[in-house]
């Protein structure tokens, strides 16, 4: 037996004193203010960091949340909606042939560097986006993807008619133009900032006209913005400083909100939203539904060429029950491609309800009284439209099994999943879309423009639908466009290439002392409207 060493007690006491001293340094109550900010500073907990703050060359939603506070567009989405309101343009008109758009620009606006906003500045930006030979066009890794997708086909030139009048001249009509210009990638940089920082540098030194000026960006940590006292919307912004902190782990972000380190967060875990409902210090703000999920039949697969089979699958799935059970109360059953609130929706497109008996009958008619087997691919990541891909996939497979359809659940990593949608690998799979703007072309134009025999995504072949959707893109009248999209949607509904599944609102959590936050459909909230009590 080892004898207890002498002096141990003294050592323990010494260690205790040292520990107490360290604890004293770390836990003094005043230290809380060491990282918490004053009431004029609003801290928002984001789920990810920006890639660049040069929005035209980025497609990154995390970047857009920041640049929305620094820059402006010609026209922007109204708070909480996709409808348009003036931003740097105060009015606009289009020529009868749809080829010349004229914008009257807001006057007396300056960029954060003091240079004026006018038609020349606007033209400078348009030229940069469109002209590959423009000295400020090329940015390493920058893609101008939204310009290329939404404008490049039709854009001819931008003209500065006079300091307050800008004309966009097109080669061919582009009816969704106005709605497309609400996409954050069409924001205007200060021309002088390009001369100061160069095309590569402005991604780290953004200079706009927006409610907040850029102060600093510590990558993967935070972006600090300072109120712009010359902002053209008088009385805004309502806070002196806006800090957008990156806390990628959902649970940690929620705990930062609970502790009061941040005043608002996005994309909380479902369980944390439930906890927030019972927390007197927190409240929930919703982004309106701007997404749709669906189950996609690969109509190149012989099995799903038969509409009776497609209907049998659709009748077998109890969508209301799954949406009720697995969307934490934020989902609603979808009946068509576009979410509520969009124009151009069909009035009553979806006759499919949950009816297992009808499903069995159709299976028997199609020659499969005992059902059949196939691979069903579920989405491997969490998206607002499919918040729990595996669980939803399992519930769907379980419903199908009840009528004798044996769906073997499969998945793979997200990159491969995205790629394989463009092949014929998947017989039936889960898919979805989050809107870019409030135009129906963004939804129907991407998924129903053509037929492709080698791709599950474009395996639906109905030239009448393609014709309507492609013609609607060059039609000037919004009323007629709405009719065409609704008609196309009705045709699609009859053919049932997709089972429309759900639209989901997206919750944000904020502290009780935060007022004025309105969730945006595209996730780019206007923080200028937000105040702290």
């Amino acid at each position, binding site marked *: 037996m080892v004898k207890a060493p002498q002096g141990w007690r003294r050592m323990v006491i010494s260690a205790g004193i040292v520990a107490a001293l360290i604890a004293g340094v770390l836990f003094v109550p005043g230290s809380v203010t*060491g990282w918490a900010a004053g009431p004029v500073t609003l801290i928002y907990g984001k789920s990810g960091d920006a890639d660049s703050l040069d929005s035209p060359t980025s497609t990154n939603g995390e970047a857009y949340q920041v640049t929305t506070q620094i820059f402006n567009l010609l026209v922007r989405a109204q708070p909480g909606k996709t409808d348009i309101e003036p931003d740097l343009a105060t009015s606009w008109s289009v020529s009868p042939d749809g080829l010349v758009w004229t914008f009257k620009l807001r006057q007396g606006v300056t960029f954060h560097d003091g240079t004026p906003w006018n038609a020349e500045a606007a033209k400078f930006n348009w030229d940069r986006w469109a002209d590959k030979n423009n000295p400020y066009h090329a940015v390493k890794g920058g893609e101008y993807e939204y310009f290329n997708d939404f404008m490049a086909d039709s854009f001819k030139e931008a003209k500065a008619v006079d300091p307050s009048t800008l004309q966009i001249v097109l080669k061919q009509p582009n009816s969704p133009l106005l709605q497309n210009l609400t996409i954050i990638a069409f924001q205007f940089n200060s021309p002088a900032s390009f001369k100061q920082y160069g095309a590569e540098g402005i991604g780290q030194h953004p200079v706009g006209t927006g409610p907040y000026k850029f102060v600093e960006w510590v990558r993967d940590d935070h972006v600090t913005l300072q109120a712009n006292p010359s902002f053209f919307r008088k009385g805004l912004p309502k806070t002196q400083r806006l800090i957008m902190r990156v806390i990628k782990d959902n649970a940690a972000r929620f705990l930062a909100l609970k502790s009061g380190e941040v005043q608002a967060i996005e994309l909380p875990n479902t369980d944390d939203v439930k906890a927030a409902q019972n927390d007197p210090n927190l409240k929930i703000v919703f982004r309106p539904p701007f997404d749709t999920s669906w189950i996609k039949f690969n109509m190149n697969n012989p099995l799903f060429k038969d509409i009776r089979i497609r209907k049998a699958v659709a009748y077998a799935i109890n969508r209301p029950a799954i949406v009720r059970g697995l969307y934490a109360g934020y989902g609603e059953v979808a009946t068509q491609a576009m979410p509520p609130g969009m124009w151009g929706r069909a009035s009553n497109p979806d006759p499919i309800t949950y009816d297992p008996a009808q499903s069995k009958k159709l299976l028997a008619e199609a020659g499969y009284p005992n059902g059949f087997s196939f691979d069903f691919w579920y989405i491997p990541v969490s998206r607002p439209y499919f918040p729990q891909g595996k669980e939803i996939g399992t519930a769907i497979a379980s419903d199908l099994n009840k009528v004798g359809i044996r769906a073997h659940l499969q998945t793979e990593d997200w990159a491969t999943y995205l*790629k394989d949608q463009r092949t014929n690998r998947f017989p039936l799979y889960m898919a979805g879309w989050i809107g870019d703007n409030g135009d129906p072309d963004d939804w129907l134009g991407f998924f129903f423009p053509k037929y492709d025999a080698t791709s599950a995504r474009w395996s639906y072949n109905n030239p009448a639908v393609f014709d309507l959707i492609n013609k609607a893109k060059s039609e000037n009248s919004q009323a007629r466009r709405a009719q065409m999209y609704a008609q196309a949607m009705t045709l699609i509904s009859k053919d049932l290439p997709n089972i429309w599944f759900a639209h989901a609102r997206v919750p944000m959590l904020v502290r009780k002392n935060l007022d004025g936050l309105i969730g945006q459909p595209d996730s780019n909230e206007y923080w200028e409207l937000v105040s702290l009590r």
Partner: protein
Amino acid sequence: MARYITRRAIALLPILLGVSAAAFLMIHLLPGDPATVYVGDHATPGSIERVQHEFGLDKPLPVQYGIYLWNAVHGDFGESLDSHRKVLTEFVPRFPATIELTLGAITVALCVGVPIGIMSAAKPNSIFDRLGMFVALAGISIPVFWLGLMLIYIFSVYVHALPTSGQLGVNISLISITRIDVLDGVLTGNWAAAGDALRHLVLPSVTVGSIPMAIIARMTRASMLDALHQDYIRTARAKGLTGRAVVIGHGLRNALLPVVTVIGLQFGGFLTGAILTETIFSWPGVGRFMYESISFRDYPVILAGILLFSLMFVLVNLLVDVLYAFLDPRIRYA
């Protein structure tokens, strides 16, 4: 000794070459295509092809590896597919943050693990011993991510004593010298920043240090028990030395050698622990960056990260071997 170190340093080259070849092969065997992730939902076959060409992903694998090695030898580890910045530029500001966290975790592991081991060995089967071994068992059993979240819950949400995440408060300004914030605060005399950085360091350090702490505690206990039964301890006591002098001066010094070995071996644990911990605590280090890069299939970053981790692991183990000579004068390297 110098010859030994040189020989070990030369042996690094084949190790790193082997690691890079294995990592390169394994990454490319995985399903999924970085070009598709890069282009995202709007991907078209044309845009995917363009990106594949831009990043050289359309070339045969051996050619890609050859180009990679050639550039790496010249200090160019390629560009991140995500940020489009040089991989080295991405690692440089993050690496000191991970070093800071690792040092914090080693401090926690040593300051808690070694005393627990000593006290348990000095009074085996006592309440100290049982309590110490319970702490060690808990340290090794509790999943790192769960421990991290619980610590935040207790110390940040309820006690409001420590920050939930980050390396430094967003309202604190600090001039960067080493990018190790606690050290920079001290070096610039900015005590408010040093204190704030230290407060940010506590919870992540405890989280990363929990598993190594447990292993060190158990190893110290076992090693000390062995040492305390040696003849020279009995002799020391017979000579009338105090208990503390016997345990610390004679027992611990001889028991330390296996503990140092364990610290070296645990270094890999510090790094892998940092991957989870940095994510939970939004710690802007290499671990979180690696985690995100793996999710994004950012090949150049993953490869460079594996090489960096391997290099650190090998260097730390070399350092441990060198330390042996100082701890035990009988050990000599030729």
